[in-house]
């Protein structure tokens, strides 16, 4: 049984991760590189002269971008393991797990691991002011875990108790509040920061839809082969 998890997660995570990595390189990486020009001081926002919004950006870097592809594949393989664990428990409760229903599971994964934490800790470009990293990580894990439980309650819970519990779990991390910086000292223009957050969330949704669909597909195929 465990090999079914591993095989499905590896295939789904590696393929969805590779596609996501390529999407990130095209849509997200240029925004990040643009921000780094401000982070390093190569460009200065609100200096003496207006700064062009279209500077020359560094091109493809085999080592840096290759590592990004590898780590994206690893990250989405990790997410695939978590998603498949949830899918298999859902299957026990009568949910159909295949490539088509997997899309819905993928959207749920996006909400739990990307949108819910990002609602208060927006995806940030390099060079923005932020609170202590450990505090933000603890809050990130708590927000993701709370959203995960909330979505499970919405999908499989019955009655008002489950639904109200889900709403409380979804809102609580944001009412308590994410760790915030003491002061704003980031040199990056807000336009770049906003575009980066939008792009990161958009590609995140695409990534999770791919991951959910692939995970459902491979889970069903591996099950059919072993049966």
């Amino acid at each position: 049984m465990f090999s079914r998890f591993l095989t499905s997660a590896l295939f789904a995570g590696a393929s969805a991760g590779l596609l996501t990595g390529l999407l990130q390189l095209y849509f997200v990486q240029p925004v990040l590189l643009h921000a780094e020009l401000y982070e390093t001081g190569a460009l200065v926002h609100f200096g003496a002269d207006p700064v062009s919004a279209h500077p020359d950006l560094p091109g493809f870097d085999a080592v840096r971008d290759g590592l990004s592809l590898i780590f994206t594949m690893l990250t989405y393989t990790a997410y695939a393991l978590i998603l498949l664990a949830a899918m298999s428990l859902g299957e026990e409760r009568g949910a159909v797990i295949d490539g088509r229903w997997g899309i819905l599971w993928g959207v749920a994964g996006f909400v739990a691991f990307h949108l819910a934490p990002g609602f208060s800790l927006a995806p940030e470009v390099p060079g923005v002011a932020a609170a202590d990293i450990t505090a933000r990580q603890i809050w990130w894990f708590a927000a993701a875990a709370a959203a995960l439980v909330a979505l499970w309650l919405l999908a499989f819970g019955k009655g008002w108790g489950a639904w109200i519990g889900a709403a409380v779990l979804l809102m609580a991390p944001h009412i308590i509040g994410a760790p915030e910086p003491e002061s704003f000292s980031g040199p990056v223009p807000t336009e770049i920061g906003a575009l980066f957050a939008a792009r990161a969330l958009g590609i995140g949704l695409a990534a999770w839809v791919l991951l959910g669909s692939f995970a459902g597909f491979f889970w069903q195929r591996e099950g059919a082969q072993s049966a």
Partner: protein
Amino acid sequence: MTTMIKTAGATRSKLVPALFAAVLGVALMALTGHVQAAALHDAAHDVRHATGFPCH
């Protein structure tokens, strides 16, 4: 009675691998997305930003 025992057994046999898969997934995600060791941080830097993990 027999059916019930079988069902419980089947559920348990899936629960343990599912739990193990989830733990392995969280561990791997912590490694690629959250551990602050310099080498890991530098290699995964762009991914951490693009994936919305807290970075720096």
